């Protein structure tokens, strides 16, 4: 179990370093290798989850490190899916190391850490974490593409030539990733919120307990609802959408992970 996680972490790190080298050298072959590395890491990561699930008979999602590891896995898969159609190898340079950190930290979590969840025998808490984590992963990809978009937008606007090899994905590709990630991520986040309410209803008899986690998550959900509406109503251009995606994800990270740690 631990071996699979640490192997996946090592592969993600190698893929991230490979992607960075691919940009810096620059070498298309190394960049392609890094993408295949990410795919291999995702496969081993899936094996790690399958092993955890077999050992504990409950989905390995109800501790923060394992949920973060799952978020990283979904993020990697989402990025690979986008890469299928677009030139986004540069994003692997960030996603690889982030996935490495998430999986590496999760590899030190003991399986017993996830048994303390109220109503864990029910599928709702796991559905909540699964959907919420997947939503966060997609919104994270939207935020990342937003950062890249803002950097590239600024470079093109100020007419700075491309540095040696540092060619980022095209603005259009980054914007497409942003739109698709926002749409899918917001849908998954909404489903995560809904399943969370059902879980609370079944476990505690009320869908709203007013905890910090619930309040901040609902605020984040509201922000994303506004951003999604603005984007799809055509009231936001690509640059504003990119900036919003970055700000939105920072807030979501605080609402879900930050508040969890602080409380």
């Amino acid at each position, binding site marked *: 179990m631990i071996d699979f996680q640490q192997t996946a972490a090592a592969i993600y790190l190698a893929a991230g370093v490979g992607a960075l080298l691919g940009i810096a050298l620059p070498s298309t072959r190394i960049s392609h290798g890094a993408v295949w590395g990410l795919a291999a890491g995702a496969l081993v990561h899936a094996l790690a989850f399958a092993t955890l699930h077999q050992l504990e008979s409950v989905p390995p999602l109800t501790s923060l490190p394992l949920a973060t590891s799952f978020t990283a896995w979904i993020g990697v898969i989402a990025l690979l899916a986008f890469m299928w159609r677009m030139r986004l190898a540069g994003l692997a340079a960030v996603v690889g190391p982030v996935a490495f950190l998430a999986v590496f930290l999760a590899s030190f979590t003991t399986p017993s850490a996830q048994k303390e969840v109220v109503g864990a025998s029910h599928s709702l808490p796991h559905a909540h974490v699964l959907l919420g984590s997947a939503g966060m992963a997609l919104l994270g990809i939207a935020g990342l593409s937003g950062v890249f978009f803002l950097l590239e937008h600024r470079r*093109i606007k100020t*007419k700075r030539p491309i540095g040696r090899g540092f060619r980022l994905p095209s603005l259009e590709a980054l914007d497409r990733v942003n739109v698709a990630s926002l749409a899918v991520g917001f849908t998954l986040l909404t489903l995560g919120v809904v399943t969370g309410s059902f879980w609370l209803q079944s476990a505690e008899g009320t869908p709203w307990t007013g905890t910090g986690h619930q309040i901040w998550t609902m605020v984040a959900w509201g922000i994303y609802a506004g951003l999604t509406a603005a984007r799809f109503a055509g009231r936001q251009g690509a*640059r504003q959408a990119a900036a919003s995606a970055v700000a939105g994800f920072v807030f979501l990270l605080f609402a879900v992970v930050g508040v969890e740690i602080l409380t």
Partner: protein
Amino acid sequence: MKILLLGMNHRTAPVHVRERFVVDDTRAALQKLVATDEIEEAVLVSTCNRVEVLVTTRQIELARERLDRFFASELSAGAPLPGGAKLEDHLYEHVGDEATAHVFRVASAIDSMVVGEPQILGQMKEAYRGALESGSCGPILSRLFQRAFATAKRVKNETRIAHRPVSVARVAVDLARQIFEDLNDKTALMIGAGEMIEMALFALQREGLGAQRVVNRTRSRAEGLAARFNATAHALDEVEGLLETSDVVLSCIGGDAPFLTSEKMRRALRARRKRPIFLIDIGVPRNIDPSVNELDNAYLYDIDDLQAVAAANEEERRRESLQGERIVFEEQERFAGWMVALRAVPTIRHLRARAESVRERELARVLSKLDLTREQRETVEAMTRAVVNKILHPPLARLGAQTDREEGLAVLEEARALFGLDDPSAPGAEIDEQLALATDGDADRPSVSGEQKSEDGEIE
């Protein structure tokens, strides 16, 4: 055998000098060159930026004089240069390794006016083909050109010498690629119908741009250009409407004030529902208000911006050409090794001939004393041939392996002394005269079909 190169290029001669030396019929010129005793092989490279003659010779001074005459009287028909300029001031000369490295540099476009440009390789191939057809290209220059093409391929693949565009039209296309992921679903609007617009249209179409529209004050000119590029022609007053559905706009028309103002662009962007638009203004005075670049989703580059990018890219190519120089050096060393190894060929041939001569003589002597059947004679003959081959194989193979570097020449000398190849009284020496006659007194001349060393130094 030495390689000698004499030529002029864009750095040593201005165009009004270079144009005097352009050769139309390279085959006839080459045939004249190799008809002389001092020149063995010749290739003539004639492009708009360079005229170079490359020859192999055993008599370097005579060959040099011959090439001077060739430039002074045959290429320029003896006419004086404009402004009283002296021909020797415009010519450069390279001999041996320097000449090899120069040819490799030229083929790899390191020596080109626009570093990394792709045309020169095709022109070099054409020059080589011309020399082959005229019969002036022998084994040495053939090998040199083959290695030059391989070097060019290595430089192209192992460096980024040709990655960044340096022409204004190509820079515009490259910038469009940084904004748009796919150009094949995009529409270009070309405002103007001049040469720059035509070049850009060609570059954009080559990149697979979806649709093109041409707008011009004189509609008939727009229609003419549109017809050539399968585009649609429009009147200038339709521009504002066309902006709503165009993704790449290239403008180059005359006029005192920018005709595309910030206000017009703002209206177009609203109608485009915030989809990005890339505007390239190559008009002087500028056709598009510079403040358009401050609008969100509008990316504007003028001619100076494009030229700045082109200059930065050219600088990048020059940096990459240093990597190319390393490859040129490696390949030049390799070729020099091959040239040295060529010197082993006559020694190897000589040694084989001597051994064969001894074998034949001794065999004849023994056979005359024996009463053997035809089969028995053939068996003995085959056995003696096998013995000679087996004895000679290790020293010949080592000789081949040692002589592909300059130090190998000493080994070659030792081998000649050891086997007494220069001793006329040594066994088998009677064959030397025949060998000299067979090779027309030119024992160390390599042949295309005869013994040559392959890439890995083995005798083929």
